[in-house]
């Protein structure tokens, strides 16, 4: 299996391969030679310079690596080319199996307007809006019929780009101009459509597996409303606001949409749920999602393994109730190398120490390790930390325990932010929606997350002084600023050990 990705998802897929007796093949860009996903694989092939468009987005180099390795199949992971129909097609054309849906399904559901049309055909409720890309002459009239506030969105879009909120008719023309311009620059397609903007909605999504024999299995929903600037940061399952009957309705609608487009393999249907508990189709992701571990934790099912089995032509023999009725509760925090005290600015650099939490109910999906650099070219993800427990309060307590165990030194991380977030009353009560996090972050007004408190600062002072005293080579290197990266840990350990022996002997 050639894994056309990097970081934690490449490690995740490689693990599923090993469990199935398949040999994982890695690809790496220049800066990724020593990355964990390369060291974990059986074979590895270089695919170009570090910038994604010169490596992980190079269809030709990926196909070439697959052929050189003799791989039978290619797993695209998420991001990069995972939802690129040309890549899926190229894999098929090369006589290899693509671990994912067909190029046609990717094309249909990749266009936001075509996806909406498919959802409507399947009888699913959709956010009030238009189905086609609009011309400027039609837009004002259509906007009136949809109602304000509304969103102008890019047809080819994603990740919040090419999107503008419009509060009333007077803002419409400018918003359309701006959205078209951004969409043209980001996706090479300036087409836009309109959608009603729901107030304080929740983002709730439904995982699906579909085999090549017509069986579609929907899973218990994931609650993904904790987002910073449209990026998910915390996900959990099940959702506090989804009753069994709402779950039945949403998962049926999701399965119907998948069937309507002949979808196969793993995918996720995203819904918005308004304050009255009405749900609306938003879009479909035709790939494995970042947050898939929490679904695996509450169902005991291995989604990546099923992706591979489905691609082999096997039948889904999952009891639907097992996928729909959650066992316990699971939460995931995406741990990023970002400085929460500096606008979540990426914090690239060398990870000097990394000690991930463990113990009951803890799962850490990591793509990196101590001694490795967080590169500037990609998403600065350290790991996905997930906690499972019998119910939500216990899962939160477990996650807090795990966050307290997680030591990452050398770079700034979002750990202090998560520690704060998981103590917020709204989070504990489950009272949140898609703009909640942006709102409370703004209300904090730059108050640092990493403020340790006087007692901890005193211990830090004691520890720093003792460290300096017990290993003068380290501290003088620090004082001279020469240890910015790569003091020789080996020599220090030797000297340190000698000193400890000396202390013990006293």
């Amino acid at each position: 299996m050639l894994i056309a990705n990097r970081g934690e998802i490449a490690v995740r897929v490689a693990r599923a391969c090993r469990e199935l007796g398949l040999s994982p093949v890695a690809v790496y860009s220049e800066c990724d030679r020593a990355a964990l996903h390369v060291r974990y694989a059986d074979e590895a092939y270089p695919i170009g310079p570090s910038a994604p468009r010169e490596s992980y987005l190079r269809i030709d180099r990926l196909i070439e690596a697959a052929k050189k390795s003799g791989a039978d199949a290619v797993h695209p992971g998420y991001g990069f080319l995972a939802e690129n129909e040309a890549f899926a097609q190229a894999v098929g054309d090369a006589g290899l199996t693509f671990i994912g849906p067909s190029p046609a399904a990717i094309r249909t559901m990749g266009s936001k307007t075509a996806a909406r049309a498919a959802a409507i055909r399947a009888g699913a409720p959709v956010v009030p809006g238009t189905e086609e890309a609009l011309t400027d002459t039609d837009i004002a009239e259509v906007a009136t019929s949809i109602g304000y506030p509304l969103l102008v969105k890019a047809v080819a879009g994603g990740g919040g780009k090419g999107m503008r909120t419009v509060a009333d008719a007077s803002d419409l023309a400018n918003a359309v101009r701006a959205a078209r311009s951004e969409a043209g620059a980001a996706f090479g397609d300036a087409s836009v459509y309109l959608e009603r903007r729901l107030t304080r909605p929740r983002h709730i999504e439904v995982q699906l597996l579909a085999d090549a024999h017509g069986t579609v299995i929907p899973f218990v929903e994931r609650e993904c409303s904790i987002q910073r600037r449209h990026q998910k940061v915390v996900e959990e399952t099940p959702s506090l606001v989804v009753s069994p009957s709402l779950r039945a309705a949403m998962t049926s609608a999701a399965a119907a949409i998948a069937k309507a487009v002949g979808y196969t393999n793993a995918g996720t249907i995203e819904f918005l749920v308004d304050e009255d508990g009405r749900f609306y189709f938003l879009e479909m992701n035709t790939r494995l999602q970042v947050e898939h571990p929490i679904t695996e934790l509450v169902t005991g099912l291995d989604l990546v393994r099923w992706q591979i089995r489905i691609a082999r032509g096997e039948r889904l023999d999952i009891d639907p109730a097992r996928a729909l009725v959650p066992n316990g509760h699971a939460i995931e925090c995406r741990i990023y190398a970002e400085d929460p005290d500096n606008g979540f600015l990426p914090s690239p650099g060398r990870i000097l120490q990394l000690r991930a939490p463990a113990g009951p109910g803890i799962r850490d999906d990591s793509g990196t390790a101590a001694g490795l650099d967080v590169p500037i070219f990609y998403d600065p993800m350290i790991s996905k930390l997930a906690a499972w427990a019998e119910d939500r309060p216990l899962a939160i307590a477990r996650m807090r325990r795990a966050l307290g165990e997680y030591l990452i030194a050398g770079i700034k991380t979002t750990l202090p932010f998560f520690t704060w977030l998981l103590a917020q009353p709204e989070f504990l009560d489950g009272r949140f929606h898609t703009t909640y996090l942006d709102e409370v972050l703004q209300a904090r007004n730059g108050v640092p997350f990493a403020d340790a408190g006087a007692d901890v600062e005193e211990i830090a002072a004691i520890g720093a002084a003792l460290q300096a005293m017990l290993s003068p080579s380290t501290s003088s290197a620090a004082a001279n600023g020469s240890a910015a990266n790569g003091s020789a840990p080996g020599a220090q350990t030797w000297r340190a050990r000698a000193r400890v022996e000396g202390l013990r002997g006293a």
Partner: protein
Amino acid sequence: MQYEVEIGGKVRQVVVTRTGGAFAVSVDGRTRQVDAVRVDANTLSLLVDSLLPAEHGPAGQRDARANRVYEVSSAPGLGAGELQVHVGSAPVAVTLNGRRRWGQKQDGRGAGSGPQRVIAPMPGKIVRVLVNAGDRVSPRQSVVVVEAMKMENELRASREGTIAEIHVRQGMSVDAGTLLLVIQ
């Protein structure tokens, strides 16, 4: 051994004395008994006395006390004397200045807090320098705007001080680790 340790803008005088197999550590005059062992190149496990000053019972016996466990790891930061310390998993930025052996300074640094070095965290371009040499700045005041990864990022003073050196100007490209400003 005496150290000046600056955390969060506050300088603490820390004196470390060996006491048999352990240490008496005083922070701004308040002394605790500390048992310290090294667990790896960067990490010490500490057992720290409770908050009351160390006392001896009658006839020189030491009171038995509950020992609080702390794990402190430290790694060099980007600037001179700067350390990234973690107490457990909590990060604390520490500047260790001027090791003194009983009053004798070893590295010639001035007393008081060391300079703040504002450093480019990644490659980028200087969009705007917001201050001039000699300006007083307050904690968290923005001092320079750097464009990187298609976003504008404001870099801030971590504590108050005076702009001592400005090494960049608008339009310059910088690498990660480039010194941008020094605040005294």
